[in-house]
């Protein structure tokens, strides 16, 4: 109904955001955990806050839930100011990192807890809880205590308990953090399906970029209490707007240099680190001779033994390390300047007749549209 076209809400002009975070700051004594953050999240989104520990992502989530009071700023949910609304009155539920299942209650009672607080009639509680147990495929555990469940089962119970009240907004704090790798991948897709099915807006906090990439409609990258970039997963990876985001999401090679020529459709940079002139085919707002950095993902770099016929983006160095990873190989190449460049190559053939090996001298190059210029 709301989405008549396939254009996501956040790209539509004048779309009404579901959650509006306006200039939120949270201080703990002298320490600023969240620093003047503004953010809009739209209905039906699966928004991921990605950041390391101490980045402020959990504090932001806890302010949405009402467990922390902002030092300044405003949070609106569906147009309603949350300042005077206690956690128990907010139309929000949360799935905790530790799951926080009540150890003295059975699975059934855990899930029914929220409905009982709302004085829902007993018959309806039983019906709704049973339906939820069925949906999460945990019917057989209804009478067990949390301590008798495996990690994956607990995660489902926690999710069921958070969803049973049909919240407008579900907050998930590291939802997959406690699961092992295999279970995690399965559950990631399941989470997306559930979110799709129920049409609840999800805000997920995670430190795991893969998790964020697979789950999110949009990612907000946080560090030092500030949101550095909000974009769709692909854009966060391919077009990082700052050095922080570039380095935090995935691995990346960064070359420092000075602008020698900046036009509307390209920038030329001289980099002593790279021992080469670099060319980027997008414009930036910069002064001549300004210090900038060029960032290239390891998989975007091409390798050859012969010197390619390029005036720009052409580096020369010695392989000092290589690791065979199965699907791909990782090389560390030392340039004349001492700078070490990381390159990944897919292992396209099973047996290579003339494989690259330690101490080989090779040329590295990339396309003009493979790199980005970073100012900050």
């Amino acid at each position: 109904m709301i989405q008549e076209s396939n254009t996501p809400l956040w790209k539509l002009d004048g779309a009404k955001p579901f959650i509006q975070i306006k200039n939120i700051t949270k201080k703990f004594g002298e320490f600023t955990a969240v620093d003047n953050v503004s953010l809009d999240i739209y209905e039906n989104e699966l928004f991921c806050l990605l950041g390391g520990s101490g980045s402020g992502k959990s504090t932001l989530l806890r302010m949405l839930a009402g467990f922390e009071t902002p030092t300044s700023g405003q949070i609106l949910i569906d147009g309603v100011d949350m300042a005077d609304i206690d956690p128990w009155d907010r139309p929000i539920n949360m799935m905790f990192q530790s799951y926080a299942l009540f150890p003295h209650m059975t699975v059934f009672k855990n899930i029914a807890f929220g409905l009982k607080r709302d004085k829902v009639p007993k018959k309806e509680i039983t019906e709704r809880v049973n339906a939820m147990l069925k949906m999460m495929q945990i019917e057989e555990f209804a009478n067990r205590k949390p301590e008798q469940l495996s990690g994956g089962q607990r995660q489902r119970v926690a999710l069921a308990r958070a969803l049973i009240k049909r919240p407008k907004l579900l907050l998930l704090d590291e939802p997959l953090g406690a699961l092992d790798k295999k279970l995690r991948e399965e559950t990631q897709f399941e989470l997306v399906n559930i979110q799709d099915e129920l049409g609840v807006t999800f805000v997920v906090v995670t430190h795991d970029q893969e998790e964020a990439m697979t789950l999110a409609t949009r990612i907000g990258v946080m560090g030092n209490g500030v949101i550095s970039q909000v974009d769709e997963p692909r854009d966060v990876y391919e077009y990082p707007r700052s050095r922080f985001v570039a380095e935090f999401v995935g691995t990346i090679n960064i070359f420092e240099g000075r602008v020698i020529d900046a036009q509307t459709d390209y920038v030329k940079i001289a980099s002593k680190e790279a021992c080469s002139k670099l060319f980027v085919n997008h414009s930036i707002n910069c002064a001549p001779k300004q210090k900038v950095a060029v960032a290239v993902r390891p998989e975007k770099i091409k390798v050859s033994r012969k010197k390619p016929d390029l005036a720009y983006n052409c580096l020369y160095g010695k392989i000092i390390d290589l690791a065979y990873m199965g699907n791909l190989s990782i090389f560390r190449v030392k340039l004349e300047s001492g700078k070490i460049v990381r390159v990944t190559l897919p292992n396209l053939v099973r047996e290579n007749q003339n494989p690259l090996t330690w101490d080989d001298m090779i040329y590295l190059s990339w396309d003009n549209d493979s790199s980005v210029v970073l100012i900050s």
Partner: protein
Amino acid sequence: MTRDSRFLKFSAILGFIFLYAPIISLIVYSFNKSKLVTVWGGWSIKWYVELFNNQQIIDAAMVSLKVAFITATLSVILGVLAGYVLSRMGRFPGKMVVSGWITAPLIMPEVITGLSLLLLFVSMEKLLGWPSGRGITTVIIAHTTFCMAYVAVIVQSRLAQLDDSLEEAAMDLGAKPHSLFFLVTLPIISPAIISGWLLAFTLSLDDLVIASFVSGPGNSTLPMVIFSKIRFGVSPEVNALATIMILIVAIGVIAAMWQMRKKENVL
């Protein structure tokens, strides 16, 4: 000095002998026929008969049990509140002072606690007319004051282990602070509360020094009577009494252990 060395085993065995030899000899001699405690005169239960005919001891035991029961209950109520204040109330003006008061009774020598409370009761009586004289009430107040500290510490350490997010989850699901306390916090810390109650009961039942200060005539507690009996020598009746008390405690502890093991097997 590995963990299974002979030296360790030997010293541990000696340690346990040291712990139990006096208790065992006490039990054995409670069945001694002879009045002379050290001379073995054959098995007999006559000291148990005499014990149960000793009205003074029976009365004192009743007083002590009553005091201990009320003390334990009051201590649990106040101690749970105090433990909750220490670990869940965040900051408030005067928190340092209050937390000092809550834990200080643990390190206060009994003679000081006893003396200071007696002087308080005397001054209060002079000023306010209450408490009129000293007796069971004053003993209960005094015992509660030092026992609640133990309960508070037990409850506090349990609360500290408790995952904060359990309480947040309850709030998040719509429970207001008071109902969250009764629905989530209290049930989870109930084992700590039970052990706190038992500890307060035992400490109250066991206390000689504080009771001696604040108890009035005619309201002697059991330890006070025992103390006056043994002060100048060994009494076979007390041996019998000790045996009964040790037996009750041993049965209680073994039952608790058995219960715990049963629970473990279920899991």
